[in-house]
């Protein structure tokens, strides 16, 4: 970026434009842990400023990369071609909560957890629950279409976005959607923007659907001798016509990893575990929990534990919650993929992974949202052995291929970003890519917004 560009940006942002090396460094990464230095970092305070920035970018041709909290796993907020990182940190107000029509209007920089907490106080519920909810933003959640544990019952971010205000790549401000439950006027531009990873428009305001807060929750932990058994139990639970609010599967690798760091008391022979939650009205919850426990036992559960009070539930969650921290001890670098397969193919996927890890001689740890078929596949590598890294990379590619072949997807919630761009075509095909590129061209003809993402390109290398 040259002086003229920086001073023009400075005119819009004043001291909310930073060009010092330390700030640029602090904004050069996200949770993918790759590093690309931006030329400058801007902190606009409202949609008008965002608009002026994008208009300027069209005139002077520099990349604008939206960034929420930088917790993405696919490199979405990395400025791979330099330019301006546009942080939404200062646009973090909850503008309105409508308790009659059940929706909230927020700025993009609001932390998801903060919104959930605010509406919970008045008996309402914003269900999307990525594990990063306490520290990721609504804008980032929408742009990645973040999901979470409760997706099996409540769906993902997409299902709660009613309307958006966004600045397109052209610098034009557009308002999409309606605040009502129904609405079919024209193309669904709202859904177009959801999951678009900051490549089509910068979301400046979001209207989100709220629902009544469930009155009670019960947690169950079912322990099984194998993944086959738990996958069977998942199907049995679904067949028993119960929809849990969460259904998390941990395989042997995950359980063993946790056991290496903290003592967990599990029955002899535990090789797989299901953590299940049901919520709703108290009586109904108790009945559903009974049915789930029954389904698990009938499919060979070694033991089923159950709790409804906060402390007991917290105890049951320990195993699941300890996986990520424990993983760090297994290998220095984690290749973390989030594939999805149809629920009925879960057991096949786990078998495939066990075989693959043995073939490629890499440490592999799996856990995930069994209720919706989303598996977090982790390959742990030391980072110091190039051959091991190569074997792991090959394994990742095989996993993607297998997921697509089983009728699933290469990414359930983390997005394509830079890391999955080379594999996009594997899933959507050349025609899919071609249509997407034409759409991109329509929203952002000059390629201003978040260049280098989603679509494969050669140039981008981390430094």
């Amino acid at each position, binding site marked *: 970026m040259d002086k003229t560009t920086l001073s023009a940006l400075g005119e819009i942002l004043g001291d909310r434009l930073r060009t010092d090396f330390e*700030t640029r460094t602090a904004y050069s990464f996200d*949770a*993918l842990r790759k590093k690309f230095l931006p030329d400058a970092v801007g902190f606009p305070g409202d949609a008008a400023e965002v608009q002026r920035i994008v208009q300027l970018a069209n005139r002077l041709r520099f990349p604008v990369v939206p960034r929420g909290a*930088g917790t993405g796993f696919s490199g979405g907020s990395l400025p791979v071609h330099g330019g301006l990182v546009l942080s939404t940190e200062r646009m973090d107000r909850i503008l309105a909560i409508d308790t009659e029509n059940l929706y909230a209007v927020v700025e993009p920089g609001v932390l998801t957890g903060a919104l959930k907490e605010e509406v919970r106080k008045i008996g309402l519920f914003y269900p999307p629950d990525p594990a990063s909810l306490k*520290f990721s933003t609504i804008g980032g959640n929408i742009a990645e279409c973040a999901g979470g544990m409760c997706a099996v019952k409540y769906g993902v971010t997409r299902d709660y976005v009613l309307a958006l205000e966004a600045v397109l790549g052209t610098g034009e401000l557009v308002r999409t959607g309606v605040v009502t439950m129904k609405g079919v006027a024209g193309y669904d531009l709202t859904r177009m923007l959801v999951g678009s990873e900051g490549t089509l428009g910068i979301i400046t305001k979001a209207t989100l659907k709220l629902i009544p807060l469930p009155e009670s929750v019960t947690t169950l932990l079912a322990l099984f001798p194998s993944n086959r058994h738990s996958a069977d139990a998942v199907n049995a639970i679904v067949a028993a016509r119960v929809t849990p609010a969460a259904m998390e599967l941990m395989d042997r690798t995950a359980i063993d990893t946790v056991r290496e760091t903290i003592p967990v008391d599990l029955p002899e022979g535990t090789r797989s575990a299901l953590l299940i939650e049901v919520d709703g009205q108290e009586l109904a919850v108790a009945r559903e929990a009974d049915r789930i426990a029954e389904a698990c036992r009938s499919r060979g559960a070694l033991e089923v534990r159950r709790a409804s009070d906060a402390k007991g539930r917290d105890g049951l969650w320990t195993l699941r919650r300890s996986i990520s921290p424990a993983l760090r001890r297994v290998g220095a670098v984690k290749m973390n993929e989030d594939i999805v397969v149809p629920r009925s193919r879960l057991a096949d996927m786990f078998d495939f992974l066990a075989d693959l890890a043995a073939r490629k001689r890499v440490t592999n740890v799996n856990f995930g949202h069994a209720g919706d078929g989303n598996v977090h596949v982790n390959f742990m590598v030391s980072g110091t052995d190039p051959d091991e890294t190569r074997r792991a990379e090959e394994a990742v590619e095989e996993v993607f291929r297998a997921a697509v072949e089983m009728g699933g997807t290469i990414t359930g919630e983390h997005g394509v970003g830079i890391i999955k761009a080379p594999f996009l075509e594997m899933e959507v095909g050349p025609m899919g890519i071609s249509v997407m590129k034409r759409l991109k061209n329509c929203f952002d003809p000059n390629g201003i917004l978040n260049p280098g993402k989603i679509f494969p390109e050669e140039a981008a290398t981390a430094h």
Partner: protein
Amino acid sequence: MKDDELKEMAGLCAKCGTCRAVCTLYPHRRTENSAARGKVVILESALSGEDKDTAAVQEAMADCLLCGRCERECPNLVLYEELVMKARAALADEVGVPAWKSILFGKVMPRDGRMRALRKAGAAAARLLLKKVPSGSGLHYRFPAEFLTGGRTIPQLPAKGFIESLGKGEAASGDVLLFVGCVFDHFYPEVGRAAYETVKASGREVAVFREAACCGLPALVSGDRESALENIGANLRRLREAAPETIVFPCGSCLLMFKRNIPSLFKEGHPLHEDAAFVAERATDYASFILDSGVVDRLPEPPPAERPGEIGYHDSCHLTGTLGKGPEARRVLERAVGDAFAEMKGADLCCGYGGTFNIRDYPTSSKIGENKVKVAASGGTKVIAAGCSGCVLQMRDMAARVEPSMRVVHIAELVRRALARAK
């Protein structure tokens, strides 16, 4: 800048961003730079040689309260506080201690012995440095704007420190040793006194550690490794010689130093490793001692409070947060003041002192501290009890600014009062 140990420590960070949402400083800066993740990345950039502006990196590392909230929430067990302290030391080795910190060491937190000298010159120095201002509760002084950022109320240096006030031969020997700490010796001798008398109520022989040098924390967090090591070495030697069974710390920050920071400085193989372990093993916080030594059982049944719930307990970052000593203090308070004690609103909010951060950026330190006191007051608290010297110093200053009727005390003062009832 090159340092393999730092590199390895920083390498544990997964850049997940958990820390930013809990950072005490973040809401005031609103940039990544202020939270742990940003600091780790800036440090890594310096370590790899990419960022060569050592002074700027030093500034970035200085902008932190070392409150440890980030570290407690970090899922990847990054030892953030240690990392920053070590980084500050490594940077100071390269470019020296920042100018504003030299002021601090020369004038406010002098090393062993110098505080006494300063107080002797006492009134005169104070007149030079401090401008008298009227205030509701006793005499307070304020630094003139030119000296630091201005607006601060600090206690008048009393004529005599606590240790100085001890009679010859008083508290000279015993298997329990009281480590009073600079602030409770020099600024608030009444706290030193209260701690001493209540610890003595255990019936055990109590010696006050008279030869104490500063615990070294202010120097360590400033990257002044040399002064820190000098003080630490002197303390460890003398403590080892005194060979007490128990060492009681009324100040949580001094305790943290001996319990955690010093042992991590002197790992296995270091000549001072054994001494450090010896002291760490015997070091205990004030409240735990009062509980374990049975002082608490000697307190008379507290009478029903006139104003129930007016006394709250402040969770100091170091004492409750890092060392996990919150429940003990509460149990002591429940016994000492009965239902006058109640959980305080915002008990775990940092007071904003942050050791030297208060000197570096007084306006921000004040905003954090004023908020702390206001939140407490909004929940009905009238008296804040704490167990750490920095917190007491800071919250008294903040109360004077925004809630003049709020009192801030050390829990020992309340225990002492309860004991007096027994007589």
